């Protein structure tokens, strides 16, 4: 019933298209195939996760056939070469680094975010922010080298008892490294607070400081706290800085001037020395890896939970 229309032109695009349509089953084939290929790629990320879980868990399982789980998680002496696997000392080392790092990163990060988001003019912000972000892009091996050859000698002048390899120096540098992360996530959270709230506060005669502390930060709190959790996860997983500057002496201590070892540091130490495939020590790096993975996963999930659960509607 398609009445032939009035375009009696030299080229009837319409007819051509209709003809192409009939012969073109390949377009439809592609149309069906593409989503499947894309889905396959999307599934890969899940496969990677499964791969991680599989490698970690299967070797960890073997490890716990040789070493008691209870001993692993409750004792504090770590010396695999003497069959002593008390991961608490590695965990305490990791925590020491993380705490030190957070003591640096939270105040500096939040203060920078406040300055950039509430005080700085557009021009200053546009200038400072990228520079600050450079800090996040510096390879960790560079930081490690800097911690060992610059920060430690400096600290040594202030703290005479400082051990050459120590948690303090590494922790400080890890902290500086994650400042941009805290700063930019906090700034994002503060940026999401609508300007009308600021105006409301300022119109009551608030100073910038009062507006920030009493209105903006409470309103952005969930985002800010989530950024802390993410930053902690990052500090827990940091490897090169601690491997280079924090030492390799597993120790159950909370004294940051001491040489310690973190979970990541242990994995590097063993795997770059020698992974004698199949020995208990070999499996131990997976057990430590799993513990590390669980720690960071908890922090990440916590961050997501906080920002979802406590998301403010303005």
């Amino acid at each position, binding site marked *: 019933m398609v009445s032939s229309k009035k375009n009696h032109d030299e080229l009837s695009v319409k007819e051509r298209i209709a003809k192409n349509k009939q012969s073109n089953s390949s377009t439809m084939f592609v149309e069906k195939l593409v989503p499947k290929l894309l889905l396959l790629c999307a599934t890969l990320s899940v496969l990677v996760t499964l791969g991680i879980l599989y490698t970690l868990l299967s070797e960890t399982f073997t490890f716990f056939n040789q070493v008691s789980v209870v001993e692993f998680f409750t004792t504090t002496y770590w010396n695999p070469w003497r069959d002593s696997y008390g991961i608490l000392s590695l965990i305490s080392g990791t925590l020491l680094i993380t705490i030190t790092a957070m003591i640096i990163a939270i105040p500096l990060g939040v203060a920078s975010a*406040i300055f950039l988001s509430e005080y700085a003019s557009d021009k200053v912000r546009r200038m400072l922010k990228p*520079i600050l972000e450079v*800090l996040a892009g510096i390879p960790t091996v560079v930081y490690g080298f*800097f911690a060992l050859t610059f920060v430690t000698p400096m600290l040594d002048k202030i703290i005479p008892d400082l051990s050459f390899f120590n948690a303090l120096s590494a922790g400080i540098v890890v902290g500086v490294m994650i400042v941009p992360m805290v700063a930019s996530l906090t700034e994002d959270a503060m940026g999401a607070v609508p300007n009308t709230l600021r105006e409301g506060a300022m119109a009551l005669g608030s100073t910038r400081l009062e507006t920030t502390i009493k209105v903006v930060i409470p309103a952005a709190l969930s985002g800010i706290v989530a950024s802390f959790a993410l930053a902690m996860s990052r500090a827990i997983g940091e490897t090169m800085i601690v491997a280079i500057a924090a030492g390799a002496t597993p120790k159950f201590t909370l004294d940051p001037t001491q040489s310690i070892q973190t979970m990541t540091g242990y994995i590097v130490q063993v795997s770059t020395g020698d*992974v004698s495939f199949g020995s208990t020590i070999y499996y131990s790096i997976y057990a430590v890896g799993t513990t590390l993975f669980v720690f*960071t996963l908890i922090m990440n999930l916590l961050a997501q939970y906080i920002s979802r659960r406590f998301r403010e509607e303005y």
Partner: protein
Amino acid sequence: MALVNKETVSNKMNSRILKNKIAKVIFFIATIIGLLFLGALAYRILTQGLGSLDMDFLTGFTSQSPDRAGIKAGVIGSLWLMSVTAPVTLVIGVATAIYLEEYAKRGKFTRFIQINLQNLAGVPSIVFGLLGLTIFVYIFKTGEIILAGGLTLGLLVLPVIVVAAQESIRSVPNELREASYGMGATKWQTVRRIVLPAAIPGILTGGILALSRAIGETAPLLLVGAATAIFTLPSSIFDPYTAMPIQIYSWTKAPQPEFEYVASAGIIVLLVILLLLNSIAVFIRNKFSKRL
């Protein structure tokens, strides 16, 4: 009845304003501390490293002697690694992003993939090293070759690219898709001819940033076995290799103290390359961001 005592209010005014001023200075100083640290780092590395940084350093292999050591193998090795990492992650990452943004129904499965990606982004790089070690070196017995290192880094930065590509695809205005569908275009035609070209600058920017992350990674490569000393350049992805950060790390461990300067020179090269990559990313972003 005035409940608000005007007197108290105006008495307090000055101290409040002073507090605000002091706070501003404190916040400024806190911001600057990060920059000062960066400055100290740059100064230290430059003063230590510039002396060793010359043509010979750029074109030479490592050496037992600090005067002769060069970073060529590291630079070339890193480039080779990227030749594996870049295409693999770009293709898979962009495909994943297209799937999530354009095809997936907003259901449980999509949310699952999304959350999974978020968490994957937070997995410590050394755990990816363990993954690479187990999968490539032990299970597939690839040996310690570029392919294994490149794929490991690829998996590591995959979430970064996916997120960047997703954002970029999301920012393509819906009107363009509608226009294309309105012409009778199929979904894939629309994605390929309209959405992707419009999203490409954002994807590239994200991709470059992800690559610069990959280039600086050390820990996973230590695990999958980059060589510390090598005097030949790889000729295929099945060859052994070293990479810039590995080379730098090995110099920080060399016996002679002079290697500290060599390491600094290596760091300069690495940082310059990263800076270049980032400038390209910024350039792309600025060049194309005006368009849409």
